[in-house]
């Protein structure tokens, strides 16, 4: 009961934050609100028993991505223009997509069901085998580092590629600016 209450309060706050982001035009406020959104979602992850996900989201979503976005708006313009077109077509697209998704969830098992298909196969197997196989208390660590180590390796490759991409895009920023100054 208390769980449902906490979840509902968190949801209301999340939805209000998201709507405020839709309305705002000052990008600084928008970035701060997106940080708040990440923090609230981290709280929701705790109530969903995903403590590791919660602190990753708090560190990455509320921390690093906020810093990156603040850097971006410092290098660009801090205020968004009000869009000139009407919001009618986007609203229809969103409603149709939302209805399709709701239709898709109708066949899903109820929230928290212990006999859901997701609770039947590898998940419980990892829980049962971790004490003997790996002997670390945190099962998420065991799966991340050992059972699914290749996934983590792939993730590292993705982050490395993105890092190279960012470096290539931004390298020579100062040099190009100096060139422009000389031309002027």
């Amino acid at each position: 009961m208390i769980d449902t209450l906490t979840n509902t309060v968190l949801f209301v706050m999340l939805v209000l934050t998201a709507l405020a982001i839709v309305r705002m035009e000052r990008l600084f406020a928008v970035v701060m609100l997106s940080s708040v959104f990440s923090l609230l979602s981290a709280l929701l992850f705790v109530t969903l028993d995903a403590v590791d996900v919660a602190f990753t989201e708090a560190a990455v979503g509320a921390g690093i991505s906020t810093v990156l976005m603040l850097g971006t708006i410092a290098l660009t313009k801090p205020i968004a223009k009000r869009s000139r077109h009407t919001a009618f077509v986007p609203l229809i697209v969103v409603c149709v997509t939302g209805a399709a998704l709701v239709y898709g969830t109708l066949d899903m098992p109820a929230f928290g069901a212990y006999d859901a298909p997701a609770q039947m196969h590898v998940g419980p197997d990892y829980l049962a085998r971790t004490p003997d196989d790996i002997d670390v208390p945190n099962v998420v660590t065991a799966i991340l580092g050992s059972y699914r180590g290749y996934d983590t390796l792939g993730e590292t490759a993705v982050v490395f590629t993105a890092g190279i991409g960012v470096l290539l895009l931004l390298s020579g920023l100062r040099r190009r600016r100096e060139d422009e100054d000389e031309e002027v």
Partner: protein
Amino acid sequence: MGQLFNLQFLAGHIHYLLFIVLMMTGLFIVVDKTNLVKKIIGLNIFQVSVFMFYVSIGKVTGGTAPIFPMDDKYHVDKEALQGIVYSNPLPHVLILTAIVVGIATTSLGLALIIRIRESFNTIDEEDILNIEQEMTRDDNIKYRDVAEGLI
């Protein structure tokens, strides 16, 4: 769709509906707003809602976080383990990977925005479209003679 009015069914599925509401708010920002930074933020909201949806699949009612009790030698205490219900750890692992990949794509998108601002001196989609159209029109006028000569 009639199931939606069954109270017990709704109690089990209300979380999914709320996640979808959040997801659609994110999608609306991506589709409607013309500022590129705001689009990236909308994408993040969408992404986090999908993560919440995915993690909620692993939740077991009455379960706790999948961290085992330890004995005094820092090994898993197999006796204390009996009878405790744990939520499914597998969605948590997959979403941990997804969060890190998400920040990688976000940073790449932000870097692209900085380059766009350098080339176009704006980060508004409609302005960029106008500039592109003007450039194409200028090119067409400039190279019209050449193109006609080829025919």
